[in-house]
Structure formats: structure tokens, C-alpha cells
């Protein structure tokens, strides 16, 4: 097994997932909803895709899993390499042998992802049977083992519960048990703790961290919550308007934020510390696709905007530490005459 603490920049490690230039357009839209998104995840690492509603983070993950409905969403470019194959071009049959097996996922609302008329143990067993040559009994044994692993109390009894008999936190544990039952190389989690209470969220985050240490599974976590990002991410990609505007190791994103959107997002969060006076805000709201600016998509809301931002698409430029930002005005201090350190 790979040493989980290997940094992504080590270079020697083959990434589990490598997405390059992914673009997605919805039927009838004038612009790509996801526009040239690239990232990679190494074994044992967690990449957080962070951004607000409509930034394209969920569409990116659904595209990667081959779950976008072809009728309304078209992949207009790019590739997503997983175990040497491009998941964007796999046939339905091929992707179904990967999904839930080598690549697993959990979603925000476990109640809607579990089938309400089947016992939870049977549903986890089913996921095992689907991908492995095992007997029903062996599959049930595996389900029980997984229930223990995700620390469901009285696991033997819980196997025969229906989803509605479990609390939200327990249901999410069942989802994690199901996702990890086939030892996936990649776990994609879309807002896995958003629907949970804060004390339960803390339990689930702790569990996910521990299981990852144990199994070395790579994780792509989609969230809007910068607190969750700080707790669980190794690497971060901040998305706005369908593009990655800033990406890098988690400490660098928080300690050295470069893109005005990242900075605005962080400074508009109220702090648990003493009251900080008026909150900073990001003015306005995300423009609809028909009004998306041709250049930087944040141009309509950016306090540092200049004319060329509206017409030129800023490239994602990296420093030597794997920290990239797509902003024509960065570094801000240099360009705005503030003496830096």
C-alpha cells in the first residue's frame, strides 16, 4: 500500500485520478458550466473542491463519475483518467463496473441515496455482490465487518434496520460502509456532512479521516464549508463560475490566499472569535450564464477589477509550491502598492 503521507508534489506517485481540461455544457446554455477544470489526486490524499452554489463543483464530480444525464449535459472537452482509463468516454456498462467498486461515492442526503424499502445490511451486501463473486452469506459478513469499521453501535442488529429507523448520522455511516465495502481507490463525497448537526458532523469527519489513514483511499470532497476544508483537506481547489480560480496545499490556500474570490469568501465568514465589526462581503451575485463575462468570470463582483479582466481569461499560474491562481491582478500587494513582508 502507498504511504498515505506522500505529498502530491513528490511526483513519483501516480495520481489516482487525473482530470484535465474538463468542460461541460448544459443544453441551451451559451457558455460552458464547467470550463477547463484540471486537478489530480494522489493515493491517500484528500482534495476539496470548494465553492458556492452554481460554481460547478458538483457537476465536475458527477461528470467524473459518468453520472451526468447525456440528454441535458454535454462533455465539451477534457479527460478524466482513472486507473488508466478516461471515465468520460467509458460506455455505460464499463463505467458501471468501476462505479461503486474502484470508485465509490457518498452524497449529502443519505435518506435519498438509500432505498427505503430494503434493510440497510442487505443494501450494503448488494453493493458487494454487484462487484465481487461472493455468496449472500459472505456479502452479509462483509456488511457486518463494514458496519463495525464505521462504528455503528450494535452492528448485528442494525443490519436488519430500514433506513428510516436510523438517525441521519447513522445513515451517513451506512453510506460510508457501502462506499468502502469494495476497497475503492477513490471516494467521491459530495457535501457528506452538510445535512448533519454540528456534533454529528464532527463524528463523521473524524471517521472519514481515520478510515482514510487506515485504507489509503484517495478522496475528492465537494463542500461549500471552509471550516470542513480546513479540517480534512490536503489540497484545495476553489471554484467560481465553473473554473478553478485558485488551487494548492491547504495551508497555502488559508495562509497565503491569492485570488480575490478566495479572499472575499474567507473574509465574509463570521468568526468564532470576538465580534469583528461589519462583515466583508462579495457584492452582487453569480451572473447567469447568459451574462457571464468573457474574461475572468469573477470580474462583475471583484473589487480589484480592471478593464482587461473583463476580456482576457486569466490563466491558472503556479508557483514552485503547487499553488496556482487565475488572476491578472495577483500578486495583489505588488499591484496595489502595499508593502509586503
Amino acid at each position: 500500500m502507498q504511504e498515505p503521507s506522500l505529498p502530491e508534489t513528490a511526483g513519483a506517485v501516480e495520481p489516482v485520478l487525473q482530470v484535465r481540461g474538463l468542460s461541460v455544457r448544459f443544453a441551451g446554455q451559451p457558455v460552458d458550466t464547467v470550463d477547463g477544470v484540471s486537478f489530480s489526486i494522489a493515493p491517500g490524499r484528500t482534495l476539496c473542491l470548494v465553492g458556492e452554489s452554481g460554481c460547478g463543483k458538483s457537476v465536475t464530480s458527477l461528470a467524473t463519475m459518468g453520472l451526468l444525464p447525456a440528454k441535458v449535459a454535454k462533455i465539451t472537452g477534457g479527460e478524466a483518467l482513472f486507473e488508466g482509463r478516461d471515465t468520460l468516454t467509458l460506455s455505460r456498462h464499463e463505467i458501471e463496473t468501476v462505479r461503486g467498486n474502484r470508485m465509490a461515492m457518498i452524497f449529502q442526503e443519505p435518506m435519498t441515496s438509500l432505498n427505503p424499502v430494503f434493510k440497510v445490511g442487505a443494501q450494503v451486501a448488494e453493493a458487494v455482490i454487484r462487484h465481487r463473486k461472493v455468496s449472500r452469506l459472505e456479502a452479509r459478513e462483509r456488511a457486518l465487518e463494514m458496519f463495525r469499521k464505521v462504528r455503528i453501535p450494535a452492528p448485528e442488529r442494525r443490519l436488519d434496520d430500514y433506513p428510516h429507523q436510523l438517525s441521519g448520522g447513522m445513515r451517513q455511516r451506512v453510506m460510508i460502509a457501502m462506499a468502502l465495502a469494495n476497497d475503492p481507490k477513490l471516494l467521491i463525497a459530495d457535501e457528506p456532512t452538510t445535512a448533519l448537526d454540528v456534533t454529528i458532523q464532527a463524528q463523521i469527519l473524524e471517521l472519514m479521516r481515520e478510515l482514510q489513514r487506515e485504507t489509503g483511499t484517495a478522496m475528492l470532497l465537494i463542500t461549500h464549508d471552509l471550516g470542513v476544508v480546513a479540517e480534512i483537506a490536503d489540497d484545495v481547489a476553489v471554484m467560481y463560475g465553473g473554473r478553478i480560480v485558485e488551487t494548492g496545499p491547504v495551508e497555502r490556500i488559508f495562509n497565503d490566499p491569492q485570488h480575490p474570490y478566495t479572499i472575499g469568501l474567507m473574509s465574509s465568514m463570521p468568526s468564532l472569535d470576538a465580534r469583528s465589526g461589519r462583515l466583508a462581503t462579495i457584492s452582487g451575485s453569480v451572473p447567469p450564464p447568459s451574462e457571464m463575462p468573457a474574461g475572468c468570470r469573477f470580474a462583475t463582483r471583484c473589487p480589484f477589477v480592471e478593464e482587461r479582466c473583463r476580456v482576457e481569461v486569466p490563466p491558472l499560474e503556479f508557483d514552485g509550491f503547487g499553488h496556482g491562481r487565475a488572476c491578472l491582478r495577483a500578486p495583489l500587494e505588488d499591484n496595489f502598492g502595499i508593502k509586503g513582508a
Partner: protein
Amino acid sequence: MAHSAETIIEADDLVKHFSGASLVRSAAVVRAVDGVSLSVRRGETFAIVGEAGCGKSTLARLLVRLIDPTSGRIVYDGADLTGLSNREMHRLRAKVQFVFQDPFSSLNPRMTVGKLVEEPLLIHTKLSRAGRRQRVASLLVRVGLRADYAKRYPHEFSGGQRQRIGIARALASEPDLLIGDEPVSALDVSVQAQIINLVEDLKDEFGLTLIIIAHDLAVIRHMSDRVAVMYLGKIVELAGVDELFERPQHPYTQALLQAIPVPAPGANVEHVPLAGDIPSPVAPPSGCRFHTRCPYAVERCSESEPPLAAESGHLVACHRAAELSLEGVSVGGASNRSPAATRRFELYRKFSRQAGAITD
């Protein structure tokens, strides 16, 4: 609790039990609010915090008599609400307004924004048609919308704009008390900040008293003066906001504070999360309701219920409050920001102001 001119609303031993009886289920009583007393001072922002099922939303609805209590008393401005006739209650409703969590479902989709904001004016004022129209326009502008939005329908607006419409509607009857049930929790962070700033401005401008129901402790820290923490239908701690965050006395409050993911890498990892699930309010645990999850529980905690007792204005319901020294939020800890981040946050604020961006 003695009534004083300072008190705008008070609750005395409020109880709300819901009977779960239905065609397919036999009666099980949900003890949503189970003996809550509090008093809110004129002009303050009072927050009620807790997790799902703690009874905070039920309490908010009881306070304005959107639902009737099983027992207990609510006194608003010296008048006992529980004894009021419908007619008197109607008059009072103008003074107490509600802002709901979900701006998508709390606005009638078939009414224009103008009609939505005008409705309370029709009910509570004697303004002429022209007068109402003028007032609607000025309210819309005040909450950061354009007057000509009055002709549009709610679905044409974003979540943040819809919450502004909800606020304009709440303000129309010139209330003294505004109750917000999770008013910003459905919004994105950047939009949430806009609405928080707006509500704080309006509070000053109109001399409002605010009661905010929320689960987001950072929002509460930012907005409120005093905070009540609820667990399974009871208030377990009630104190001034700094006091509560920096020196919590109830183990549940400490657990809540520690469970919040802090947006600073490495800041929060060493805390052991609270074990177990929240018990059902149908059958709350004996004694202290928190004892099944409390890391400090002793035998006494499962046997007798601790009263909500005060020590210099800091109310706490815990047998062991005096002997425990609990950990609060370390001030400066959450924001041990790097100099680079601090500089850039300042730069962002400065340019936001210069850009004349709508900052509320």
C-alpha cells in the same frame, strides 16, 4: 421573572407537547419544548441555538403564538399573550414579525413582490393605495432591491434577494420585534454576509429587538448579545455572548463550540467529538437530558434533573457546573491568521469600499 420596562417579551415555563397520534401510529408525545423560561430585553439581539430537534423553532413559533403552548405563559410588552382574544392578537402581530429560513418556500409564488410587501400594509395600516405603493417602493430600496422589482415574481430572484423580500415584508408593519428562524442558513457564505449586515443596519435604524434562531455558532457570535443553548426541549445554558463563548459552563455548550470546524488548518483536530446521537424527544433521558452523551456525567446526573440556576447572570443547568472548568473558544485562536492573509483581507475590505460595492 419580574416584568420591567426593559423587557419586551418573556416566556414563563413554556411547554409544548405534540401528540404523534395518527391513523397509522398510536399516540407518542413529543416533548418539543419542555419548561422554558426566558426574557428578552428591548433592543438586544437574543439568540437561541441548538441542534435539530432541540425545540428552538417550536419555541420561536410559541413566542409569537403561531402555535399555542400546552402550558405556560408568554408576556409581550406587559400583556399576557396566552389570554388575548384573536382581535387583540391581530393588533399585536403587526409589532412582532417573523423571517423564515427558506426564502424559496415562504413567499407565495403567485404574488408579485409588490403585492407580497403590500399585504401587511393592507392588514395593519390605513394607508391609501398610493401611500402603500410609495411605502413598498421605499421598503424595497431600503433592503437593497430596486423599486421596479415590485412588478416581478419571487422565482425571478436569487436566494439572497428573496430573503431581502422576506425582510421588506416583515418590516412593512413597523414591528418592534423581529424573529428570524435560521434567516441566513440557506444562503451561500458571501450572500449570508450581505444579509447579516443588512439585518444589523435595519436593527439600528428601526430600533428593533431581534430573536435569532440558529445552529451556526459563528453567525450567533457575530450577531447576538445574549445566547440561550437548548438541548432536547430545555435551555441548558443562557449567558452573554462573550461569556458563553469564552467561559461555557455546560458540557454541551463546550461540545458544540469544539465541534465547529474552524477555517484554519490544524486548529481543531485534537478535540474528541461528542459520542452518540441526540436522543429522541419522545423519550428524553432521565435526570439531566444530556447525561447519555456527557463525558463528565456521574450517577447523580441520571437521577435528578439539574435546575437552570444563575451565578451572576450566567444561567446553567448542570450538577457539576461549579467543579468543572470547561474550555471555551480561545480568543485569537480561530483567527491566528498569517500576516499575508491578514494584509489581503484588509486590502479586500479597502477596495470593496472604494469600489462602492453594495456592502449590505
